[in-house]
């Protein structure tokens, strides 16, 4: 079946290349049938890619070890769901998966926006086709998943540390996010190529951007949770280049989400938005490059890349081409209005954008600097945690504060007096909380204290927004408080969904501040019968047991956890030893407190199974569970903003009827 896969990929490449070339010609010469033909080719590209993917998935599920890829990434004993996840677990398969998502998104995008201006769509097709053709070229010629061999008796299997549910969801979520940024990019460039001066591309791609951004955000949180629970070094984010690879496009996309609102409302920042969407897309591809090329000292890297140089070349070409296009169309991108006041909601959006982009670029520098240093001086350096922590505080804390200020400021021009009135309540609450926190001992970390105080300010201003809005709605339309609240949110989904997302970010900030600035760490070697004290908890080591699972030898230490004289149960950290893969894994024990949201996190090292001593590392992390809670709130907020709004659709339809074309988003 491998030849079928290879053939299908060739067909896909042909379709996408045709979509790119014929589509470009059709858009240039305004040939309607050729443009339609190119669009159909894009759809056919998806079909062919889907068939190729099906071939690979079938081989993975069938243990077809004649496929080199299957033999390298699965084994006979591997459960079916991890055999499926091997699709995105290796270099070639994940490239194919990327192509699948890309062609899938492209098809949906061109079909859903079918009536959004023929001249615009005519350019969207060749752009998406070019991106697709590039990735198809990679899977056809550079990193094909369809190499065959003599079937060995068994495959190499999947690293035990990857055999967990996170492997099933974290990579696909990230890919759905990364690839999703291609759509707004394509529509933006198409707008420039079609010489359209309107905002249709923003209207059409708004939900795409939101969706991609939400997937990227959730994917990252899942990755953090995976690191925390499964990998078990005690943290959830290590500023590893591959982690940053997902953070950077997410930050750029966040900035973009905000600044397009300004363009929609005021017709400003057109050039800025074009540059941002190019940045977000290029960072997404760059992130892919970082993960695949093995160029950076990262433990996430795939094999030394054959793919790396191609991706880098693609990024350079895309960046150069897009910038040239934006520059060429600069006269068309003149704003209709200007910023009236530096104290206005537009201005706060601008400041927020600047901070987000600054943070994004500092992270980018931290990632790229080792590469540049090697290329220029011949010596590699590593940029470590303190660098990132510093800039996260310098840019992140003001961003946090802005989230609370923004909603309180009016559009166009806000009088300072009105602003002062609006701020007073939340500011007083925040200061009071700050003082209370100092009294409780939170003064030990100044950034942590600042983060907490700012967070209270933001939460208070968000709550105030909801209260004021519900009250106004109730005075307008009557009804009970809950109904007024419901209809308030339903009628202003973007605004209030946005507030919910802001609340999620604040919860995240509190969780991060608590679990990093205020955590306690203690390491000690204990023999059975001994105990240790950490942050008010007593941990008593009772003994070690040994068990056996289907593929591992499991060593567990048993610890009795108590606080004061109240017993909190037992936890059992330990290690698993996998004879087939000749490796071991850390099995940490975490005890969640549902009241205080803190975790007691225990790592057991160098376990002497014959009743000897064990090294325990105990971390007490306050408020860490807020981070995961924030994820749930984030999803809720995103859903609210994404939810279709019939009234908005009617309004947009009326607008574009003026042009003789309807928009269906």
């Amino acid at each position: 079946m491998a030849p079928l896969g290879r053939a299908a990929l060739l067909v896909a490449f042909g379709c996408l290349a045709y979509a790119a070339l014929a589509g470009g010609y059709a858009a240039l010469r305004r040939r309607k049938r050729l443009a339609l033909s190119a669009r159909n080719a894009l759809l056919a590209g998806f079909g062919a890619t889907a068939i190729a993917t099906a071939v690979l998935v079938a081989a993975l599920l069938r243990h077809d070890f004649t496929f080199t890829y299957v033999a390298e990434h699965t084994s006979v004993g591997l459960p079916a769901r991890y055999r499926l996840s091997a699709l995105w677990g290796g270099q070639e398969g994940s490239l194919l998966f990327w192509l699948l998502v890309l062609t899938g998104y492209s098809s949906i995008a061109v079909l859903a926006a079918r009536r959004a201006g023929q001249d615009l769509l005519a350019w969207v097709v060749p752009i998406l086709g070019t991106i697709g053709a590039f990735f198809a070229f990679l899977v056809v010629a550079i990193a094909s998943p369809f190499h065959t061999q003599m079937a060995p008796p068994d495959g190499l299997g999947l690293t035990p540390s990857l055999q967990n549910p996170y492997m099933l969801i974290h990579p696909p979520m990230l890919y759905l996010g990364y690839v999703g940024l291609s759509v707004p990019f394509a529509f933006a460039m198409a707008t420039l190529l079609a010489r359209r001066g309107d905002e249709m591309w923003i209207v059409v791609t708004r939900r795409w951007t939101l969706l991609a951004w939400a997937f990227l955000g959730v994917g990252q949180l899942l990755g953090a949770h995976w690191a925390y629970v499964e990998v078990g070094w005690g943290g959830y984010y290590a500023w590893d280049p591959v982690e940053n690879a997902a953070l950077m496009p997410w930050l750029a996309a966040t900035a973009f989400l905000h600044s397009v609102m300004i363009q929609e409302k005021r017709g400003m920042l057109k050039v800025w938005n074009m540059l941002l969407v190019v940045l977000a897309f290029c960072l997404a591809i760059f992130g892919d490059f970082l993960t695949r090329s093995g160029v950076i000292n990262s433990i996430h890297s795939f094999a030394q890349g054959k793919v790396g140089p191609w991706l880098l070349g693609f990024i350079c070409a895309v960046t150069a081409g897009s910038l040239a296009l934006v520059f060429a169309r600069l006269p068309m991108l003149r704003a209709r209005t200007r910023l009236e006041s530096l104290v206005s909601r537009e201005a706060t959006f601008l400041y927020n954008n600047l901070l987000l982009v600054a943070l994004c670029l500092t992270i980018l520098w931290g990632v790229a600097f080792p590469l540049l240093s090697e290329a220029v001086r011949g010596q590699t350096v590593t940029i470590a945690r303190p660098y990132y922590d510093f800039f996260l505080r310098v840019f992140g804390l003001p961003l946090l504060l802005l989230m609370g200020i923004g909603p309180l400021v009016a559009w166009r021009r806000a009088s300072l007096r009105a602003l002062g009135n609006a701020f007073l309540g939340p500011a007083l609450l925040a200061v009071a909380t700050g003082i209370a926190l100092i009294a409780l001992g939170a003064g030990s970390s100044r950034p942590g204290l600042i983060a907490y105080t700012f967070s209270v300010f933001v939460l208070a201003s968000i709550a105030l927004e909801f209260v004021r809005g519900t009250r106004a709605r109730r005075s307008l339309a009557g009804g009970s408080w809950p109904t007024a609240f419901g209809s308030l949110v339903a009628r202003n989904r973007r605004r209030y969904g946005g507030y919910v997302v802001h609340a999620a970010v604040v919860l995240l900030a509190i969780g991060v501040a608590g679990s990093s600035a205020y955590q306690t760490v203690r390491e000690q070697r204990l023999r059975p019968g001994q105990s240790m004290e950490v942050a008010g908890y007593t941990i008593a080591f009772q003994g070690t047991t040994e068990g056996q699972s289907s593929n591992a030898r499991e060593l567990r230490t048993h610890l009795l956890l108590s606080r004061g004289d109240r017993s909190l149960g037992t936890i059992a950290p330990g290690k698993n030893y996998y004879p087939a893969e000749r490796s071991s894994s850390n099995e940490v024990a975490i005890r969640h407190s549902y009241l205080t949201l803190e975790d007691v996190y225990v790592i057991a090292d160098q376990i002497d199974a014959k009743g000897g001593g064990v090294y325990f590392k105990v971390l007490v992390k306050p408020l860490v569970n807020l981070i995961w809670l924030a994820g749930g709130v984030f999803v809720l907020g995103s859903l609210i903003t994404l939810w279709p709004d019939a009234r908005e659709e009617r309004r947009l339809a009326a607008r574009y009827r003026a042009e003789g074309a309807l928009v269906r988003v």
Partner: protein
Amino acid sequence: MGGKRSPVRLVVALSVAGVLAIFLVYTALAGGGTPSLRPSQLAGHTERVSLVGKVVGPVVGQSHSTAGMRFRVRDVNGTASTRVVYHGSKPDLFRTGRDIVVDGHLRNGRFVAVPGTLVTKCPSKYTAKS
């Protein structure tokens, strides 16, 4: 951004200047990162560096014992190697033949690692940090 002199350009320019200023101050104070060296490049460096290489030969001792865990690290693409002694948590993936990164100082011909800085790379697979 069109019209009369818009404050947006000014704000953007000032912000860029501000960010660069903060950045330069930080780099001047905190330095430009830790040098990342292969065993063949170690000679003569007395400051804290990151050693990158492949674990070769037998691994002797326990990382939590007083004597520490001892092993040799070789250039990934070369033959030069150095002895390393490490104390602290041993990552799961650590094994002879794996690529590692560890911080430390070169002392008397031996690389004395900073506890807890040992990171093992798993080739050609997605892995998470240990």
